[in-house]
Every structure is written in C-alpha cells, then in structure tokens.
C-alpha cells in the first residue's frame, strides 16, 4: 500500500496544515502532567494519525492507539489503558495514548466509553491525543471544552500534486499532468484518497496481477479488438494497452462513431449501449473512488468493439463540425457567458431558450454587437458574422 509506504515519518515531511503541525509538536514537546489533552479535528486524509505517530517518534514516545476498530466500552478502555497509567512502558520509553475516531465513541457498542474518556481526560498522567473525522464533536461538548482543539484543513491541491509527483518519481513512473490533476480534483483534499487513486491508476486494470510486457498502441489494439469476433479475445488485446480509462473510452467512442460503415443497426446499437455502460461505470469509479471497479472496464469496452470491424479513429468529430466548434463555437460560448449573466440564467439555458430570440434582433443591432465585442474580447467582425449566419439559418427555416 502506497498510503503506508509514503506515510511521512517526520513531521517536517508532511504537507499542509503547517500551523497545526507546529502547535501539536510544541504541545507534545512541552507536555507536563496536568496539560490539557489534544483533540485533532478534521476531514479524513488530512494527516491527523500521521502527525501523532511522526511527532511521537521524534520526541521519543511510544503510541498506544485505540481506534474504532477496537471495542471501547468502559471496561475495555480501563483494562487496555491501565498499564499506561504508570507513564512508562516495560522498555522504559514514554507513552502517549491515542484515541482515534472518538466521534464514533457512543451508543450501545461502546457503552460507557464516552463517559470514561471524559473522566480519563481529567485524570490521565500521560499525554492523551484524541482525533475525530469531523469539524466538531457536537454530541460531546465536554470533550471540546476540556481539550486543546486543533483543526485540520483539507490538503491544498497544489501541495497534493507535488506529493503525488514525488511518489511517482520515487516509483520511477510518470503520468500526464491532466491525470494527476484529475486524481487531485476527485480526492477533494484527502491525501489518502489521492494516493490510493494514484496507485490504482498506475496499476489500473492490472489488478489481476502479472506483468504487462506486451504493449500495444491504443490504435492497434482498438482496431484489432474490433476485427475480432470474440469478446474474450478482444478483451485480451485491449487489456494490454497502457492507457488511461478516459482515453480508452474516448477511443472506442471515436472508433465506433467515425470508423464504422453500414453496420447492422441492431448490432451497432448494442455496441453503443455497451459503450454507454462503460461511461457509466467510469463515472461511478470517479464518484465513489472505488478504483477496483476498473477491472470491469476493459471487458465492457472489448465487448462493445468486438466484431464491429471498425477502423480506429483518433477524432470523434467530422471535420466540418470541428471547424464550426472552433470558430463559431468559441464566439457563441463567450456570448453565452456574458449574456447568461445579464438574463440571470445558466449558459446552457441561455443557449437553449434565449439564443434564437436573441439572434433575431441582435444580428442587426450594431451597438449591441460592439458592446458584445468589448465584453467577450472577440472582434465585432466575427461576432457580426456569427450572428448573421445564425439569423440566416433561422429565417431560412433551417433547411441545410
């Protein structure tokens, strides 16, 4: 697990939450009997556990950790913590008690646990650290009052990106910046999620183990999979390709839509339906960050391609439409951005429900076109041209 392998061993190597780290370190360094316990609050993957272990290590403490995976009734806590009360382990080093996930410490299963912890806070003779995955411990306000509260923030994207790059470098791997940014984006400040995501992408599709020494280009693999009538064989070909999931989906989409001719409609519909399912699977993986689901993606994509005899296409857009997307599309997007604000609607809604009407009178309105030019940064010549064409299309009854 990279999350363990790359868990910083020293406080100074951690990223994010600089001020909290400094406060915690100083708290532990200057801890004397009677000091308040520390309560670390914050979202998952922001470094609470790492900080406790790293600081303890540096300052010569042994960590006695109890988390939600342990039963924490009063009796159990008492029994587990009794040896710690002396302050020294059998080996003579100092002890720190770490109660992780205290927010989960209530209800029937941990009967009496919460009360015991409150008692512990006032009587313990070794440093006590508590942590919770939330921004407050509302259901036990006593705990917050009696502790030194330290709030962790999510790890900023930039720092996360740097850390992921450091891991990649250490592993001798490389990824496109876009992919890294995507991982960072979906991790939402959770370093653990980001590292897991990174590892899953690097080994993506390779969960079944083994070496992937047969490398094909996406182009060759897609064409070959499409010419193979058997989904299993198409899969065997497709899974050897070293490409990102989005790239593969995009390639299959382009190939099916641009590289097939006169296919049987039912067969073609089946292929497109499978592609649609691959897209949904990918969306689910991203949303739930359940990277294990990636193992199904190649199977579905392979079935979508198999037997279609489609020829690989790099582009998913016919040239005439690409040029409209580039030229008119750019002007239209900027216009929508400006005008949607003026009409208090979304850009899409402006284009869907306002644009046709807007064209009818704006195409001939020189003043408005000049103003649009200023606001969009496009030349008024190109705006006039686009609006005029649209105007013609509308009045010409769309007979293109």
């Amino acid at each position, binding site marked *: 697990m990279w999350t363990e392998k790359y868990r910083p061993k020293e406080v100074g190597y951690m990223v994010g939450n600089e001020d909290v780290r400094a406060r915690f370190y100083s708290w532990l360094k200057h801890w004397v009997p009677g000091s308040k316990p520390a309560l670390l609050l914050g979202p998952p993957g922001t470094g609470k556990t790492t900080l406790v272990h790293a600081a303890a290590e540096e300052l010569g403490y042994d960590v006695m950790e109890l988390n939600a995976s342990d039963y924490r009734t009063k009796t159990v806590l008492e029994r587990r913590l009794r040896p710690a009360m002396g302050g020294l382990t059998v080996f003579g080093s100092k002890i720190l008690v770490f109660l992780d996930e205290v927010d989960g410490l209530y209800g029937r299963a941990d009967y009496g646990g919460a009360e015991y912890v409150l008692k512990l806070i006032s009587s313990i003779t070794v440093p006590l650290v508590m942590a919770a995955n939330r921004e407050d411990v509302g259901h036990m306000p006593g705990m917050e009052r009696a502790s030194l509260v330290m709030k962790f923030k999510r790890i900023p994207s930039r720092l996360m990106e740097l850390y992921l790059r450091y891991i990649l470098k250490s592993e001798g791997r490389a990824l496109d910046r876009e992919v890294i940014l995507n991982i960072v984006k979906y991790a939402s400040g959770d370093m653990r999620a980001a590292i897991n995501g990174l590892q899953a992408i690097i080994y993506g599709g390779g969960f079944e183990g083994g070496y992937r020494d047969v490398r094909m280009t996406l182009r060759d693999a897609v064409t070959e999979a499409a010419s193979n009538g058997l989904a299993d064989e198409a899969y065997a070909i497709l899974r050897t390709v070293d490409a990102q999931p989005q790239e593969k989906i995009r390639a299959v989409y382009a190939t099916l839509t641009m590289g097939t001719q006169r296919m049987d409609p039912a067969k073609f519909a089946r292929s497109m339906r499978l592609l649609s399912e691959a897209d949904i699977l990918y969306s689910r993986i991203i949303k739930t960050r359940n990277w294990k689901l990636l193992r199904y993606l190649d199977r579905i994509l392979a079935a979508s391609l198999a037997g279609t005899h489609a020829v690989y296409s790099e582009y998913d*857009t016919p040239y005439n439409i690409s040029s409209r997307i580039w030229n008119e599309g750019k002007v239209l997007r900027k216009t929508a951005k400006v005008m949607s604000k003026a009409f208090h609607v979304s850009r899409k*809604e402006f284009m869907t429900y306002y644009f046709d009407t807007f064209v009818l009178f704006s195409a001939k309105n020189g003043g408005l076109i000049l103003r649009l030019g200023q606001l969009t940064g496009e030349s008024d010549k190109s705006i006039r041209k686009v609006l005029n064409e649209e105007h013609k299309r509308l009045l010409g009854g769309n007979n293109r």
Partner: protein
Amino acid sequence: MSRVETTMMWAEKYRPMALDELVDQEEVRERLRMMLEHPDEMPHLLFAGPPGTGKTTVALIIARTLLGDYWRDYTLELNASDERGIDIVRERIKAFTRYVDMRSGIPFKIVILDEADEMTGDAQTALRRIMEESSRIARFILTANFSSNIIEPIQSRCAVFRFVRLGEKDVAGFMKRICDEEGCEYEEEALYLIYELSSGDMRRAINQLQATAVLGKVTVENVRNVFGVGKRSLVKDMVHAALKEEFNKARGTLLELIRVYGLSEKDIMKFIFEDVMAYKNLDHVEAARLLAEYDYRLSRGSNPEIQLAALLAELGALSRK
C-alpha cells in the same frame, strides 16, 4: 450589459421588480411579505418549483428590497449548472461570505444560488458548513427544480417555498400585457398555443412570444413557424435522422447542438422525448422505456454526449422493429 441592452429581451424587460407584480404564487407572496417586514429574522431560503415560475425573479426582488440601491454590490449570483463543483463553493462563496465589509443599513449579504440541485453532493456538503458559519454575514437563497435533489441538511437549514406551475390564463394574461405595451398585434388563440408549446414556463413563453413578434403578427401560424425553426427544430431533424437509421447525420446534429451551441443535454433529452412521442409508426411503449433508460443514464454517466449518441443508435434499431 447595461440595463438598456438587457431590456431588449422581453423576458428581462418585463421581469417583475416587486412582489405585487408577480404572477400567481399567492402563498409564496404572502409568506414572503411577512418575512420581509422583519429582515433580521430572515432564514436561508430554498425556492423549489418548475422552471419559469418566478424563483429567480423573487430572489432578485428580495435582494433589491433588502439591500436597496447597493444590491448589486452585496449580492453574489451564481448558477450552479454552470459551475457545479466544490471549488466554486470553496473559492467564490467562501470569499464572498468571509468579511463583514458592508455599509450601514445593509443587514447581510445575499448569495443567490440558482439551480442548486445541479450541485454535486460534495459541493452541497461544503455549502452546508458555510451556510452555518456565515449566517451572521450572509443569507442564502437557493433555487431548485426539485428540492429532493438538495441534501437533507441544507433543506433543514432553509425555509422552503414551493412555486407552482403557472396556469394558462395567468401566462396568457401576462403576454397580453406585454403585447399591449409593445404595441404588437396578437390572436388570443396564439397566446394559448405558446403556453402549450412552452409547457407553462413563463420565461420560455415570453421568449417565444418575442421571437414571433419579431417576425410579424402573433398568429397561430406564425407561432408554429417560430417553433419550427431554431435549435428546437434541429432536435427534431436529429430524431428523424436517427429513426431513419441515418446515425451519422443524427450524430452530426447532436455534435452541433452540444459542442457548437452548448445546449443543455437534459433539455435535448426532453425535446427528443417530445419528438419521438409525436412520431407515428413507432412502438411508443418501447420508445418510452428506452428514453427512460437513457434519461437515467444521462444523469449517471460521465460524458453526456456518449449517452445521447448511444440513444440515437438505439432509436435506429428501435424503428427497425
């Protein structure tokens, strides 16, 4: 855009500026009127209801009423369907609600978050905290088509107002008023046809009215003509092509709609449904099942274009049966 320029669009020009001018929504109006008498007590608000029923209009009225001449300075208006992610919450909303930098007489800042039901779950969760933390500084007004898409904790932090679909008399009446002001001739029947074609959405109706008026008198025939051109008719062409098994042509139009014009994929889906159901010689039950499936997939998938392209391919196979 200045006021003068935006008022060229009637939907903007005739947007009600006071609660009294609002069409229908009696219940909402009464409750709001009472609330506005004690602005300090105002909670966060959630306006739920179909499009074109006045949600954004009322939000703007509240901002104007409570913040007076400076309402633009102290109102942040965002459309969640343009910026759905968590970043927008973290960056723009947080920055706006962080500081008390208001002139006297301004009770709080206002954040209008349109189409809040389009926000991702993460973004909504982040928003929930900000709503609590900034309640001293700002009030939130969220609008949504379906309040059920708003996470529970946010709903519970808002006073919920339900906007009802407008009746045809109300919408037609409003259009008549506009026609009178603008001095354009109309057939009464044509106004009812516009209502029907725009499914009760006032904003859509007014835009269609104006488009028709640009072309001449508002007659039943002209209304039909206007609805027969433009982006809406592109969808119709696309559906025809798909059902005739001309997939490439249909997808070409789809690419135009999405990538050139930037239409909303959800609305494209809605239009496809209307057109498919109007198509004869088709098993409408099978078609409805297919559309229902893809409507769902559209909300689940990551690339709406792939979903709609797959639907076009399936429509081709369906027409064959």
